[in-house]
Every structure is written in C-alpha cells, then in structure tokens.
C-alpha cells in the first residue's frame, strides 16, 4: 500500500467519484431524514425542521412498543429456526465428498438468486387454506384416519370429524415460515465458511480420546464454529427485522412489522416526520447490534492474543 500523498492526483481521481456518490446519494439522504425526524409537518408536502423531540417520544406509545416487540420476536424466533436448520445443512455440505460440495452449495444458494417477490408469492400460493400444504396435510389426515378405522378406533373420531385446514396467512406462523424461507441461504453460508476453516484434527483428537459424536459436537465443533454461527445470526436477523414484503403478503396486513408501519407513514398516513423517526430508530437498532458484534470480536481476538503471547 502506498501513501495517498505520493500520487495525489491519481488518488483523487479514484477517491472523488466513489466518495462523492456515497456522500450525495447516501449520506445526504440520511442527513435529510434525520432533519425530518426532528421536524413537524406544516402542510401536505412540507416539513419544517423545528428540532422537536416529539416524533421520537411517540415511539414509546403502547401501539408502537407492541409493534417493535412483535417485530423483534418474529425476527428472533425465525433466526433461531434458521440456525437450527442451517447448521445441519452447512455441516452436511462441509463434510460431503469434494466433488459433491459445489452442487450441494448451489442447491442452497440458487433460491437466493431468485427474485424475492416471486419466492414470497410462490409461498403465498401454497400456504392458503386451499393451497398445496393443506392438501398434503389433509392427505396425511385421511391416511391417519383410515389407519385408526382399520385398527377399530374409527367411531371415536380421535382426529375430529373432518380435516380442518390450518390457517397460515394473516397469522404469525405464516410470517415466520416466510421469513425462514427467504433468509435460510444467508444463515447457511457463514456457518459453512466457519466449518471449512475448522482444524479437523481437533475432532479426531476428541473422538480418539473417547468422546462420543454428540459430546464432540457440543464441546469441540460448536464452540469452534461459534463465530460463524454469530455472524449467521446477525446477517439473518438484521434483514428480517426490516422485512417489508413477507409480513405484507403473508401477514395480510394483520401481522405488521416495523417496515410496514414505516411505509404507511409515507404512503398512506402522510406523517413523514414520524416515519423518518421510526426508520432512524430501526437504523440505530441495527448499529447497536453491529457494534456489539464488533466489540465481541475485538475481545475475542485480544483473548486469543493473550493465549498465544
């Protein structure tokens, strides 16, 4: 690397367009929504910056607090499901024979390249009360009912009189399924990367010393890939928290998350200052999560340095 002063003209020729674009179309917009978030609506299209704190104070209204808790909860539980499914999936890919690996990886990544709206719409189609998922469950129900009849338990109607379709759309369950569906590839990749970097001889040592597979997983494999798991959790959780499309389509307007309410401030309610305050709050939450991760990473590397030093 060279010092920027040595070739200042060349440096500026590269630096200016890059920084300029970000300053104009990224930083300036953020500054403006900050100014809006401390402003008041004076007419239909005009917002005046009055340095008021009222918009932020409104974030403590019970309705908004409930909304934030619901969003955190939905994103949290979906992240946990993603990790529980993503870890075994990553493990299978990382330990597969080398010639299979790229293909297994492709299976997981391919949906990520497919349009988000199309994927959500595809899910919307099969999750309806007359959709394919309920068809499948009904088939299973009929088989189970038949089996009960066969063993002579038919007249008790243990499974109910007839199959009752499960409602997913407009419920938490539908939104959680959608969030997991959309973000699962994000979860698998960092865990897979951590498993690839892993020194495999530790596992061998553990098994040689008599620990079982489960014990080896719990006390060697999982702790050693924890960094990957945390990264996976964060890059799954952050976009989930700001999801708009999944709750809008699968929640049918009955399971709103933060982004849906932000959108309404701009497109329907026309309360731009409040919408600005809400989106900045979401931004702050994101920064706090990232900062915590950075601090934890720093502490870990310092600990490691001490071990070696």
């Amino acid at each position, binding site marked *: *690397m*060279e010092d920027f002063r040595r070739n200042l003209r060349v*440096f500026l020729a*590269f*630096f200016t367009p*890059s*920084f300029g*674009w970000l300053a104009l*179309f*990224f930083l300036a*917009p*953020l500054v*403006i*929504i900050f100014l809006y978030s401390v402003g008041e609506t004076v007419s239909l299209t005009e917002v005046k910056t009055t340095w008021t704190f009222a918009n932020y104070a409104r974030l403590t209204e019970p309705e908004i607090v409930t909304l934030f808790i619901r969003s955190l909860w939905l994103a949290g539980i979906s992240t946990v499901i993603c990790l529980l*499914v993503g870890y*075994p*999936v990553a*493990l*299978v890919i*990382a*330990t597969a*024979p080398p010639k299979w690996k790229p293909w*297994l990886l492709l*299976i997981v990544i391919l*949906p990520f*390249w*497919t*349009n988000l*709206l*199309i*994927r959500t*719409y*595809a*899910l*919307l*189609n*099969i999750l*309806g009360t*007359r*959709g*394919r998922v309920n068809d499948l469950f009904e088939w299973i129900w009929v088989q189970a009912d038949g089996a009960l009849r066969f063993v002579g338990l038919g007249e008790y109607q243990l499974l109910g009189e007839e199959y009752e379709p499960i409602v997913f759309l407009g419920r938490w369950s539908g939104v959680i399924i959608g969030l997991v569906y959309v973000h*699962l590839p994000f979860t698998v990749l960092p865990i897979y990367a951590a498993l690839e970097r892993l020194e*495999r001889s530790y*596992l061998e040592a*553990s098994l040689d010393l008599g620990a079982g597979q489960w014990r080896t997983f719990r006390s060697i494999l999982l702790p050693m890939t924890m960094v990957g798991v945390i990264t996976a959790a964060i890059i799954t959780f*952050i*976009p989930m*928290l*700001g999801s*708009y*499309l999944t709750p809008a*389509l699968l929640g049918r307007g009955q399971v709103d998350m*933060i982004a849906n309410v*932000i959108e309404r401030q701009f497109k329907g309610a026309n309360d*731009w200052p409040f919408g*600005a305050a809400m*989106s900045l709050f*979401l*931004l702050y939450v*994101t920064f706090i999560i990232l900062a915590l991760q950075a601090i934890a990473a720093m502490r870990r590397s310092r600990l490691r340095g001490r071990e070696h030093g």
Partner: protein
Amino acid sequence: MARRRRQRPGPFDYSRKLSLQMVFVLATIFLYAPIIVLIIFSFNDSRRGGNVIWRGFTTDYYVKAANNASLIEAFTNSLTIAVISTIFSVILGAITAVVLWRWRFPLKPGFEGLVALPIVIPEICLGVAVAVFFSYFGLYVPPGTPWPFNLTNIIIAHITFSFPFAAMVIRTRLQSFNREMEEAAKDLGATEFQVFRDVILPHLKPGLIAGGLLAFTLSLDDFVITFFTSGPDTVTFPVKVYSMVRFSVTPEINAASTVLILITLVLTAIAMRYQSFGDDRQ
C-alpha cells in the same frame, strides 16, 4: 471395511449421518417446492383461482402475459434499470475497490465503513431516505420524460445500494493481484493509466463479471427501494407483480414469474461458468 466405517462414523463424517441427511433433504424440499408448484401451475388451464385446482395443461397464460402491455412495460423497465445500474455499479465498484486496496489515507477505516454501510442497513431505511432526498430537493423526474430517462431516480437508488456489493467482490479479486507486475510495467515505461488498463483490468475481469452479475441480480430483485422511488408511470416488474397480487391472483403472474426464474437460472449458469473460468487461469 466399508461396513465397518458405516458403523462408526469418522471424525468429519457428518454427511453420512442419516438424521443430518434428512434435514438437508427436507430443507431442500422446503426451499424448492413452492417455486416448483408455481412453475407447474403457470401451465394450469383455469380461469379463476388458477393456483388451487389443476384443470389441464395450457400455455395460454404465457401468451396472455406476453400480450399484457403494462406487464411487458414493467419487465422492460426492470431490465433497463438493471443493465444501466450494473454498468455504473461495476465502474464505481472497481474504483472503490482500487481506492481501498491501493492507498493508505487518513480516516480510511471510516471510508471502509461508509462503503459497507449500504450493505448492512435495512432496505426500508435506504428506500425512505432516498425517496425523501429526491422530494426534498424536488429532484423528481417530471412526468412525460422520455424513456429511459424517466427511470433516473430508480437507477440512482439502485446504483447506491448495489455498487458497494460489487466493490466487495472486486476487492477480493484484487487481493490476489501481484503488485510486482505493476512495478514491472512501470519500469518498462507504462503510464498510470496504461498500467490500469493493460495490467490491473485484465486481472480483475472475473471479479468484474461476478460483481456485475451480483449487481444485476440485486437490481432485478429489488422491491422495497424501487417501491419508494418509483412514480406512477415508472413501474418495475416486482412493483407490478406486487400490485397484481394485492388485487387478484392470476395465472399470468405465474407465467411471468416463471420467465424471470428462467432468466435468473441462465444468469447463474453464466456466473458459474465465468467463476470456474477465472479459477483455471489462476
């Protein structure tokens, strides 16, 4: 020998465990079943509720989608935006990658963070911010602006969120560049520009293609940011499908979606080709 190994899995033999294989298979079904059902039902011969009962094979809805002028316009808009924003994203991304790779300068970690920021902040925040920015400065493209200039707002927004991704991909590629090549070229009398054009750029090619494909997909995929920056006359494919889904579900959407999935598959195949091509040359 083989049987003995199956009885007791070795240290890193998790892929042989049946329970783990089951999770993998179920996850794959979960990821693909909705898309496959969508594709199958795009051929369903049913007027209403086309996604509920199978009524025989037809390609009518492809013809209908192809004759739906507003759908085709949205499709064309999406592709145009994706192509233009990809070109700009690759150029800006390459420039940014070179800045981060080549120079030491004050507040560099700050600049690095700034470049990464559009990647990590929630889409909705960026969408709101850019939309408010345009309206604040009255930068909305006046109605009646000829195509493709009426898409300027959306293109600017797309470049802003996709060039940092391209920069990351290109930067990774740059790290494998041998700087002695650059010095050799300079010793032989090449100017800064010649070094960039004839030495650095050819090395970067696979990175540029990978970054470009990523930018293209991100642009084609984006709904939220476009939703905020688009006007009533500038509808993109995802925005159009969203409004169609909200009003009614028609097999036309399935047909149009299937076409887009096909485009994505072809692009992914190209991306993989180029990636392995790049590896061969290393």
